[in-house]
């Protein structure tokens, strides 16, 4: 086999000798082409980059608003929620949330009286949330005489300290903003759904219009302008409290609320570090 190789090599060398001028011309043309390509490469590269980057918008940080100067948080007072569902409607209108999906919602818990002689403190718990609470709640299927206790619980993103949702995003499209909000970059999200699976609270959903993950943004576009989130603004009974942990304690409604009430978080055992504080929660709430 090595014989074959040297034979063909000999053949090639003799061919080159016969067509010497052709080889020189070929070499010059080749190097000219190379130099031209090199000169054009850099501006061509820059044009390509610009075309690609335009697809991924790039803008400066919010003018006049410094995300590192705030730490937003919400608290929920279960004893003050009357289940009117106005917050859910307000959120839907404010954020164009698609029908059938919810950035916030209200749950109604109806705990039945225990069976007599059963030795239990309570009977069955019936939970419902028809259309997330939009339009209010119709009377419960459970008869009034059977009810031990009943209450409404507003639900939303729990603004976790160790968000499992941002931990699992493969590309960095969902993140903990420096000011406490947990946001989704819908121009970067690939729509894999990992974050939606990872949230224990059910607060994320796959938006059928943007084909990305979607969730409560704490009305980021409002709070960065000094307004309150839509749900907080519209709630008629002060069940939702919004504030900034970087404010002095006495000035801030949220910090006052946490100081004056015993509060609890949802599913604390999972270690997600949920920061949204609930006052008046019952053991049956998940």
């Amino acid at each position: 086999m090595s014989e074959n190789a040297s034979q063909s090599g000999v053949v090639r060398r003799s061919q080159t000798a016969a067509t010497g001028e052709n080889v020189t011309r070929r070499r010059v043309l080749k190097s000219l082409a190379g130099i031209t390509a090199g000169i054009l490469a850099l501006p061509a590269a820059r044009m390509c980059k610009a075309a690609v980057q335009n697809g991924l918008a790039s803008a400066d940080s919010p003018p006049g608003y410094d995300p590192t100067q705030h730490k937003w948080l919400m608290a929920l007072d279960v004893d003050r929620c009357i289940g009117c569902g106005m917050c859910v409607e307000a959120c839907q209108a404010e954020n164009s949330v698609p029908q059938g999906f919810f950035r916030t919602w209200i749950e109604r818990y109806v705990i039945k009286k225990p069976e007599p002689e059963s030795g239990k403190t309570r009977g069955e718990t019936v939970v419902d949330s028809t259309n997330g609470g939009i339009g209010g709640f119709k009377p419960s299927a459970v008869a009034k005489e059977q009810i031990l206790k009943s209450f409404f619980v507003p639900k939303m993103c729990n603004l976790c300290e160790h968000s499992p949702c941002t931990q699992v995003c493969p590309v960095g499209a969902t993140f903990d903003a420096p000011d406490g909000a947990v946001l989704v970059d819908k121009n970067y999200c690939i729509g894999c759904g990992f974050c939606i699976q990872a949230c224990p609270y059910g607060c994320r959903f796959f938006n059928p219009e943007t084909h990305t993950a979607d969730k409560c943004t704490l009305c980021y576009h409002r709070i960065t302008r000094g307004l309150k989130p839509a749900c907080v603004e519209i709630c008629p009974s002060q069940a939702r409290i919004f504030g900034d942990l970087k404010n002095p304690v006495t000035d801030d409604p949220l910090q006052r609320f946490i100081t004056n009430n015993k509060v609890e978080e949802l599913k604390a055992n999972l270690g997600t570090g949920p920061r949204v504080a609930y006052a008046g929660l019952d053991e049956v709430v998940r």
Partner: protein
Amino acid sequence: MPPQIIRLVLLTIGIVCAYFMARYFLVPPSFGEYGHYRGAALQEIANREPFWAGRNTCDTCHKEIVQKLAKAEHQGLSCETCHGPSEAHVKDPEVKLPQMGYDKCVRCHEASPSRPKWLHQVTVADHYTGNVCTECHDPHQPKP
């Protein structure tokens, strides 16, 4: 160095170079500004126009009503909770917001075993058979 190894090393270097070149084009410029995400996203999300004006906006023109409200039981309410979105009215104050029906009142005040006890609630059918709650209750000062 055996020819296989040389070829493979060259190929590997080529692939790695192609990867870093691709990164130069495809990683957005603001990526990594605050963390592992596009810093520009914060501005994009914040750029959305707010929908609800908020009570403070109503206060700029309707000071008297807001002050009256502030002294009564409905003091915690936002104007838009009952009056609906004020967008059209804020744009052009000549435009009046739609009239509210009594279902707005019933929405919050219909009695329910799930509602907390501090709320004034009535079984509307037993309380009043008309459909104009404002016959007896001024919404801005509801206690009759």
